[in-house]
């Protein structure tokens, strides 16, 4: 999809939308709404890149680790519902975040664990296209990561 392709009005329009979104102007099209829920990290959820999410959410450096495991399907049956589960062998885990860098906003979900929690979580996420999925586990103030690839194809005449 290139900007130079004059035939692709739709692509241009979508790019324009994305630019608007990037500039933060996207919000003006929204109806007035209540303030975000207390404790919801607005900045992290609006970040476009993995680095920006890390900076907004943790401010630390990520180290890939085999003590973190992430499980995703190789081929998503539908990008709207992709099962993702993350677990870790680390102790003292305080949070688990899941990033989908190819989505418009990189951070999909972040979980705050308690003293009673076991270091695992499973959920279902939307993925716009074929992407890496990154799990970030925070333990003892440090960040450990693992990643996995998901192939996303279009839905259509099935079922």
């Amino acid at each position, binding site marked *: 999809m290139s900007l130079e392709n004059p035939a692709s009005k739709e692509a241009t329009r979508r790019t324009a939308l994305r630019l608007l979104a990037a500039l933060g102007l996207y919000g003006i099209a929204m109806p007035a709404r209540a303030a975000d829920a207390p404790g919801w990290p607005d900045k992290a959820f609006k970040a476009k890149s993995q680095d920006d999410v890390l900076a907004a959410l943790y401010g630390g450096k990520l180290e890939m680790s085999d003590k973190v495991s992430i499980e995703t*399907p*190789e*081929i*998503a*049956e*539908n990008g*709207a*519902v*992709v*099962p993702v*589960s993350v677990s870790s062998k680390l102790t003292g885990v305080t949070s688990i975040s899941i990033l989908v860098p190819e989505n418009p906003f990189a951070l999909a979900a972040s979980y705050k664990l308690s003293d009673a929690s076991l270091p695992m979580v*499973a959920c*279902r996420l939307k993925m716009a296209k074929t992407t890496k999925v990154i799990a970030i586990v925070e333990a003892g103030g440090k960040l450990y990561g693992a990643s996995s690839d998901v192939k996303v*194809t*279009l*839905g*259509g*005449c*099935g*079922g």
Partner: protein
Amino acid sequence: MMIRRLLTAAFAVACLAAAAPEPSGPKADQAAFQAYFFDKFPDVKHEDFGNGPYAVNAKMRKQWQEIMEFPPYDFALDEGKTAWETPFANGHHYADCFDNGGIGIRQTYPRFDAKTGQIVTLDGAINACRVQNGEKPLAYQTGMMASITAFMAESSRGKPFAIEIPNDPRALAAYEKGKEFFYSRKGQLGFACASCHVTGAGQRLRGDILAPALGILAAMPIYRSDWGSMGTTDRRFISCSSQTRALPYPAQDESYRDVEYFLAYMSNGIPITGPGTRP
């Protein structure tokens, strides 16, 4: 004695000769239909055909099993159960309209109705029940209709399809019309139901695995991730029509009811799995 035996043999040969070129009729159709799928998917257990694409693709099956840990149709099931237990304004219930109080009977629909000479689907029977009790009919494609059929299907899980074609020329005619519909190419793309769900069954089309026609109705109604909601058999038929660029018929159109009758009869013996989830 000798002559008699010869005559019997001759008669048998004559019968064979008459039948050999083309065994026909619903029974023969059903045997050939099921043999085709059992042969095409030798590793799939027969009772598993009601699980559609998940029966024939191991990778998708795993995702499905994860999703089935807490299936997204649970809310619809709850809604259906509540509606089932709530009396109509006249004090009657859905249960009063059906055999066995409506429990464990999904596998016997669609049925031929000798009074009208028409095929009655489960969805049609639910609305007939409502109208009979002074209630407005429900919209056919999604919402409450899907919730109630989900509840009824769940109560019938594991019961094999048991569709009857009574000895009535009108029932046979409906079956034949359904069969013709199933195999006729339609729409600008020139696809028949059979193009995707017989010839193409198990293959990928734009990322989706095409479900085998055998048992395809056993999972109805379904929660499709693609829809993000529940849908009935009508919704699936209508979307199939649109996908082939054929102008869809109205829900419960005679053609759709007939093809449902044909398809369900072809699946006799395949257990009900509904409600289901699909990509």
